């Protein structure tokens, strides 16, 4: 990047399945005010505002235009980003590029979703091709269920392994005051929860949340002058997949698929040979338990086919050597347009040492986050306490 970029502040709303106490604009403003307060800035310090959410989830288009009061974009340049499940990270990517280019010094990034106001399943089915696959659009649950049966058949994993992921996520969420599903559950609870689409049970899936996240990105001078604990964006990478080719469905594929391509690119850029050692914490986009196991493998935290061994051995626990999603992850909170940004903000909190009760016990210097969505694509972000390392 031409100029170094830091996260100098951020904020999130609390997350819940009902937020009738606020409308969309009011909810967005809640996150914006939290982020400004956290960065010790006023809206006058902000040069540009980038906002995003899932297309039409709340029944309104052009949310960047009609949310100007709540977002703080009045009189300022800005734009809307809408890239599916990845949107929260794509907003940060766009913000980082604007700061890195020298165009702006301080950019406010906002991701939100108020899922209760729309029909998520119905609108998601509109993502599928109208003549090819829409009739079968089994919402996200069907997609991940098929991936799971493929994963189980390929590697010999069993339902208990996904249950371990379900428990880890919700137990971590209990330590996160902003998380949606704070559930004191056991493996037995997960294995006995209602079957939605074999082998995906209720506790294998993310909730449908309302909430927003906002981040403020600044150039190096502002970050050093005004922020005690800037978190530096070391690298961001995006990799698309192609429509119709559901590569995550075939966990043994040898094709250079989005997740592995993106990870390889970011590791190459930063000279990383062992990501499990290089990064101190991971915040990954896990809408379903099985997706987390596939991420372990695609990120190179273990060999292909060993993701379920990693969770079995407790390696990715909050106190383990490779902590994954100490926040509770998407499995505990999924306000889709904000979810990928929450991964970045939660990782930044870990680097700052500000995560509170869900702070991982070891020293955190570097973190990696992933986003996931659309027709299978990802945005990854590598963060560090040090702009050069």
């Amino acid at each position, binding site marked *: 990047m031409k100029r170094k970029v830091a996260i100098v502040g951020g904020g999130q709303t609390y997350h819940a399945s009902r937020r009738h106490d606020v409308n969309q604009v009011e909810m967005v403003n809640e996150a914006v005010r939290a982020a400004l307060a956290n960065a010790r800035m006023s809206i006058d310090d902000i040069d540009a505002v980038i906002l995003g959410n899932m297309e039409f989830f709340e029944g309104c288009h052009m949310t960047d235009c009609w949310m100007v009061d709540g977002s703080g974009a009045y009189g300022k340049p800005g734009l809307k980003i809408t890239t599916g499940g990845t949107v929260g990270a794509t907003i940060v990517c766009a913000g980082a590029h604007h700061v890195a280019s020298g165009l702006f010094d301080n950019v406010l990034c906002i991701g939100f979703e108020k899922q209760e106001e729309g029909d998520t399943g119905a609108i998601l089915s509109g993502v599928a091709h109208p003549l090819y696959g829409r*009739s*079968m659009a089994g919402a996200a649950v*069907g997609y991940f269920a098929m*991936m799971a049966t493929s994963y189980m058949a390929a590697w010999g994993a069993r339902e208990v392994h996904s249950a371990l992921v379900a428990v880890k996520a919700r137990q971590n969420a209990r330590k996160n005051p902003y998380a949606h599903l704070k559930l004191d559950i056991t493996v037995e609870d997960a294995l006995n929860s209602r079957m939605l689409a074999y082998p995906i049970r209720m506790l294998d899936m993310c909730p449908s949340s309302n909430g927003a996240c906002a981040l403020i990105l600044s150039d190096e001078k502002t970050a050093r002058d005004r922020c005690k604990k800037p978190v530096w964006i070391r690298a961001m990478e995006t990799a698309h997949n192609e429509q*119709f080719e559901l590569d995550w*469905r075939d966990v043994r594929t040898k094709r250079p698929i989005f997740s592995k391509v993106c990870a390889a690119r970011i590791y190459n850029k930063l000279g990383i040979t062992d990501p499990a050692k290089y990064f101190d914490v991971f915040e990954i986009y896990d809408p379903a338990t099985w997706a987390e196991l596939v991420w372990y493998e695609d990120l190179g935290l273990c060999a292909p086919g060993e993701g379920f061994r990693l969770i079995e051995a407790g390696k990715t626990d909050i106190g383990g050597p490779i902590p994954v999603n100490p926040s509770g992850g998407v499995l505990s909170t999924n306000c889709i347009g904000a979810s990928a940004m929450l991964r970045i903000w939660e990782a930044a909190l870990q680097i700052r040492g500000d995560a509170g009760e869900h702070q991982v016990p070891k020293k955190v210097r570097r973190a990696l986050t992933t986003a996931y969505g659309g027709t299978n694509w990802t945005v990854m972000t590598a963060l560090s306490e040090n702009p050069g390392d």
Partner: protein
Amino acid sequence: MPNETMEQELIDIPMTVDIPYRFAAGPYLSKFLTELKENGKFFGIQCPRCQRVQMPPRIVCAVCHVKNGNWVELKPEGILAGFTIMYLPLTDPTTGKPHQPPFVYGSVRLDGSDSVLDHFINIEPVIDKIKVGMRMRAVLRPRKDRIGDLSDILYFEPPAEQKKSVNEEFS
């Protein structure tokens, strides 16, 4: 936490957005759907560079960014790459009606194709009866009832379960 102390009534109003569209399939998908309807045949298209046979057919190979060339007729048979037993009464967006659960649907990779196709699987929704890697064969609507979309495929099922009368539909 939410503002529980607020005493005023909070209004939320149910609304439905109903928007008509006309979707143009283009020549590649049109040929695929026409062959399915008229002749009960599946066609993929092959990239001249990487040789992948892609289904549904499309103009450009996304990987090589070259124009796809050869049309490849595929047998209506393949293997089950993944499946689920769906217990939720999900609405079929194309009809507005729910599919009756439990039902099985899966991803089938037709022999010779690099792509998978998602569709219903006609098999008892019992986990012991379904395996990734099973052979599958498509069952189509009778010719006179086909309309030129994927619903012309009724389902896939293990070839052993197919009756002679069904196979005749492909002739």
